């Protein structure tokens, strides 16, 4: 019982800290200490983190490379946009509609994930990478041609935003996305630290051994991939209400590559790494807009360097620093006891 209380206490401590952080963030934006432009970058970073986390779940934790998360993001974005544009509710129910639409967008995306995962995940090897890559392209072309729903190549204009109040806009968008991001971080973290999560990581480590230890490999690959698609769809939904405008070219292969770079740079299978890198890279991208055209050159170079020198990414570097410090400390302690 004492242990239980300790756990409840930690829960409230963490929840309290997060709430405090969120309120401080909101206050800083509202007061204008964080200007509107920076607030927008932070919000966009939150969306990138959500989708990168979903990619990390299937590629980093489950070990199945996926190259088409922009496609899932697009499905979520258009589905959510369609719902909020076609369903009319009284003003005070608007946030409810937004929340439900985003979740439904995620569910629709998860369905697509299931449909392409079912035949592909039975195969060993990198077939998933090829199929998801093709899938994202198919989705993009479909979005261009389904003018009735998506507005075609001209894009979908007039998607309502989180709030009509221009002054409150940055705060409300930031809050919506921050809340979803925090929930998703906890969802993935708790899942990975549970028995199904261990089964998922075991598949990454050694498929044959996992199978021989009683893990239904196909089931867990499907589970992870569907959940990944669901989260990416939610990220897309959040994106559509944030920008109020969608265009199929937003969801090209480069977008998928953006997420992959965040995951690899942050460290495959590291949640903290993905979150940190998501924020850093999104900020850098805005900062280095001049270099936009050279992304196709810079990103592959970054990936090659990471793979060559630090395959564990940012998370691996932090881990190295931690062991280095703890070694220093223990060495010091040994010296001290030696002197004494």
């Amino acid at each position: 019982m004492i242990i239980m209380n300790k756990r409840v206490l930690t829960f409230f401590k963490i929840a309290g800290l997060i709430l405090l952080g969120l309120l401080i963030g909101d206050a800083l934006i509202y007061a204008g200490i964080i200007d509107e432009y920076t607030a927008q970058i932070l919000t966009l970073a939150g969306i990138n983190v959500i989708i990168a986390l979903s990619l990390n779940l299937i590629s980093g934790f489950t070990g199945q490379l996926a190259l088409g998360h922009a496609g899932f993001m697009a499905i979520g974005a258009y589905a959510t946009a369609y719902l909020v544009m076609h369903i009319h509710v009284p003003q005070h129910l608007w946030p409810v509609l937004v929340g439900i639409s985003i979740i439904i967008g995620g569910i629709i995306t998860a369905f697509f994930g299931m449909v392409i995962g079912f035949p592909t995940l039975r195969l060993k090897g990198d077939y998933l990478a090829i199929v998801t890559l093709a899938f994202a392209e198919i989705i993009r072309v479909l979005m261009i041609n389904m003018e009735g729903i998506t507005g075609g190549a001209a894009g979908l204009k007039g998607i309502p935003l989180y709030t009509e109040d221009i002054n409150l806009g940055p705060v409300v968008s930031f809050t919506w996305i921050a809340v979803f991001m925090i929930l998703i971080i906890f969802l993935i973290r708790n899942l990975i630290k549970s028995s199904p999560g261990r089964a998922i990581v075991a598949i990454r480590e050694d498929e044959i051994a996992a199978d021989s230890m009683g893990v239904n490999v196909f089931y867990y690959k499907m589970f992870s991939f569907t959940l990944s698609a669901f989260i990416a769809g939610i990220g897309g939904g959040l994106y559509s209400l944030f920008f109020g405008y969608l265009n199929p070219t937003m969801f090209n292969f480069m977008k998928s590559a953006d997420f992959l770079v965040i995951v690899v740079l942050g460290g495959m299978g590291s949640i903290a790494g993905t979150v940190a890198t998501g924020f850093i890279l999104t900020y850098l991208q805005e900062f280095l807009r001049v270099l936009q055209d050279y992304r196709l050159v810079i990103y592959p170079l970054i990936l090659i360097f990471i793979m060559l020198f630090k395959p564990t990414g940012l998370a691996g570097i932090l881990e190295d620093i931690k062991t280095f410090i703890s070694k220093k400390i223990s060495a010091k302690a040994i010296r001290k006891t030696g002197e004494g």
Partner: protein
Amino acid sequence: MSILQVQNISISFGGLKAVTSFNLSLTQGELVGLIGPNGAGKTTVFNMLTGVYRPTDGDVYFESNSGETKNLIGLRPYQITKIGMSRTFQNIRLFKDLTVLDNVRVAFHFNVKYNSWDGIFRTLRYYREEDEITVKALELLKIFHIDHKSNELAKNLPYGEQRKLEIVRALATNPKLLLLDEPAAGMNPQETKDLMGLIEFVRSKFHLTILLIEHDMHLVMGICERVVVLDYGLTIAEGTPAEISSNPKVIKAYLGEEVEVHA
């Protein structure tokens, strides 16, 4: 009574007949050795029994944990593990980047009753069962004297301990029949001796039936009650260790034929 009945299983890869008409019957509680020169098809037999390969011919009847006898042909490895047959691997297949403890806890996976939702929302059920399997995993690790390393990554263990961890992981699935693929490979004589004791110990403690592949004749002759010898995919001899070691066919398979030299 027999818990495993292997009837005439064969498999060929392309044109190569890796194993031909292999038969085996294991009685509850037996410790049987499977030996033979390199490439004789021993690991292939293991792979067929555990569902990694599907035999081209034959049947495998296994008395499952629930007491009913099932034909294992066509079942996937995870299904076979669930009904009570577990194994280790010749070329160690640990989950290298997981801790020692998590390696064992993965094996408890299908015995855990809480689902993903319990895990995500950290329900009481989650905590209760996680605590339970952690205790059980540590107990098993303790038998093999590696419980003090439970928080180390599996890849950082020395070779001998990695082999032991593989056995612990297999035991965690609560098997009736344990298949050990060269458990003593790479161990020094003292470690091998310790391992023999441990195998005997877990056999009686968990009422196991054990089938093991081994090249260390000291171990095979020391603990196996019965030995089956394979050569080129064919069973060439079967009997007690003493019978086997004096069987001319076995000697021929291992050492080659004696050539009479006429002066």
